[in-house]
């Protein structure tokens, strides 16, 4: 018992006394930082327990129905090849949606990005407000936009296009203004000193510096948008997701497997292409 007590004292000493953490050398002394690891572990443990409580984890049900899951997975792994003829149309629509959303969103983002760059717009009021509003719009996930637009525009690809455009708009605006803020301002000032107005100076001095990054940002967003466009149909907004949802609700997992396979190929192809182009740009 006594041994245990002294052990406890030894363990907790660094928490109570600074002396225990101080190492004295011949010429200098170092004090270790306060040991917070234990508190972090405790806090994480507490959150873990709370999260299990909040999410009604039911492991019995999970393991009881696990064979159900294996059945679904094994059917997914036997894709129905003949289904491919029915998915060409929705697949093209998915790509159309992501191309259109990317184009519209990233063109609209240019002026907003300029107005949120602190080196172009000098008034902190203007760029602060623009950035704040944009960050509010950016918090809402693209699928929530799509779900809301269902009620506003109605079912179909148009709602998906608008949702993807809004989302791309916010992301490109943020990434682009961050690029604009890193440019070399000397040419801009030089052009301005010749009597050019701000727009002319921007076109000649800033645009060539940021154009490559802009195209790279747009391509990156295109990659994201292909993934979003693939699932945007689950809320009714067009694309392959509509078909996926339909096949899943009819429990046609062989068809689902085929769609996933083609989707995988398309996504990998587009990502490879986009990454190649971005590398060339950089």
């Amino acid at each position, binding site marked *: 018992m006594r041994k245990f007590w002294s052990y406890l004292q030894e363990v907790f000493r660094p928490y109570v006394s600074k002396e225990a953490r101080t190492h004295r050398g011949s010429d200098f002394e170092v004090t270790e930082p306060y040991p917070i690891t234990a508190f972090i572990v405790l806090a994480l443990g507490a*959150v*873990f327990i*709370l*999260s*299990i409580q*909040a*999410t*009604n*984890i*039911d492991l019995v*049900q*999970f393991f009881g*129905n*696990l064979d*159900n*899951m294996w059945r*679904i*997975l094994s059917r997914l792994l036997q894709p129905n090849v003949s289904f491919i003829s029915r998915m060409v149309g929705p697949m093209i*629509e998915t790509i*159309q*949606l992501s*191309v*259109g959303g990317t*184009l*519209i969103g990233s063109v609209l983002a240019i002026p907003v990005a300029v107005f949120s760059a602190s080196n172009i717009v000098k008034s902190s009021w203007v760029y602060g407000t623009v950035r704040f509003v944009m*960050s*509010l719009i950016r*918090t*809402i*996930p693209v*699928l*929530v936009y799509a*779900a*809301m637009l269902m*009620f*506003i*525009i*109605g079912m*179909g*690809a*148009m709602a*998906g*296009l608008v949702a993807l455009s809004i989302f791309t708009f916010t992301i490109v605006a943020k990434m682009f203004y961050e690029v604009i803020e890193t440019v070399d301002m000397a040419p801009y000032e030089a052009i301005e000193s010749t009597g050019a107005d701000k727009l002319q100076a921007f076109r000649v001095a800033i645009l060539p510096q940021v154009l490559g990054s802009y195209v790279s940002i747009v391509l990156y967003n295109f990659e994201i948008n292909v*993934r979003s466009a*693939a*699932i945007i149909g*689950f*809320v009714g907004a*067009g694309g392959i*997701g509509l078909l*996926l*949802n339909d096949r*899943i609700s009819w429990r046609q997992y062989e068809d*689902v497997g085929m769609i*996933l396979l083609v*989707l*995988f190929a398309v*996504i*990998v192809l587009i990502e490879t292409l986009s990454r190649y182009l971005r590398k060339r740009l950089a």
Partner: protein
Amino acid sequence: MEYSPEVVQSYAKRPRTFVLKLGIAVGVIFLFFWSIPTFEGPLISQSGVDIVTRMFQGLLNPSWDKMFSLETFHVPYLMYETVMVAFLGTILGTLAAIPLSFLGSRNITNSAMAFFISILVVLIRTMPFFVIGLIYIRVVGPGVFAGVLTIGFTSTGMIAKLYTETVEDMDKGILEALDSTGATAIQKLRVGIIPQLFANFVSHSLYRFDINVRNAIILGLISAGRLGFELQAAIGNFRYRDAGAYLWGIILVVMVIEFASANLRKKLIYG
């Protein structure tokens, strides 16, 4: 105004990219028109405008009762639940990603194994998470538990990819140095591997946690979560003031977690 001959000369030799520019412009315009879906009826209809105005009114004057009461299924509780789902999902994803990332690192296993694991990781990453969500709903029924499992599964892909990159960047010289001192495997893990990887691992998981909070909201749209579900139901039932409250909840929870995650990551990596 006279220009010096050098200026005139170099101006005459400027790159002529007019054809290229025209080609790109035509290409982009073509892509634009190709991508616009056909749409019957007016894009901006009276009822659409009505709903948008009501939604904005709802945002400006949300139902304060829903917004601040601590009762179950009101906004603060839903925000808390969303974060908890994302947290548990991230933990699951991290736990699954650790073995995958070590097995998939070319500097640890042989290249055949690494290749196999990387294919597996790409497969997991490209699986649309609504598909996983609906499969888990078939297994455990609708509710946040299905959401946790979905987020755990879908996080695994990205976390494993980021972890693999970290492990492949690891300095193995330290392990050789420890070998020469006669350290055991556990000791090598404790002082040679964990300190190198820990900060980056935690940083990647925090990054994914940020994404997972959004995904936990979205999963509500297929009834594997609650915040998204309640928002959709509120708009569908014309309860725009409730919808406003849920939207503020989404904005708040995403912003707070994004801010916290970004700052913690900055602190972890740059000290």
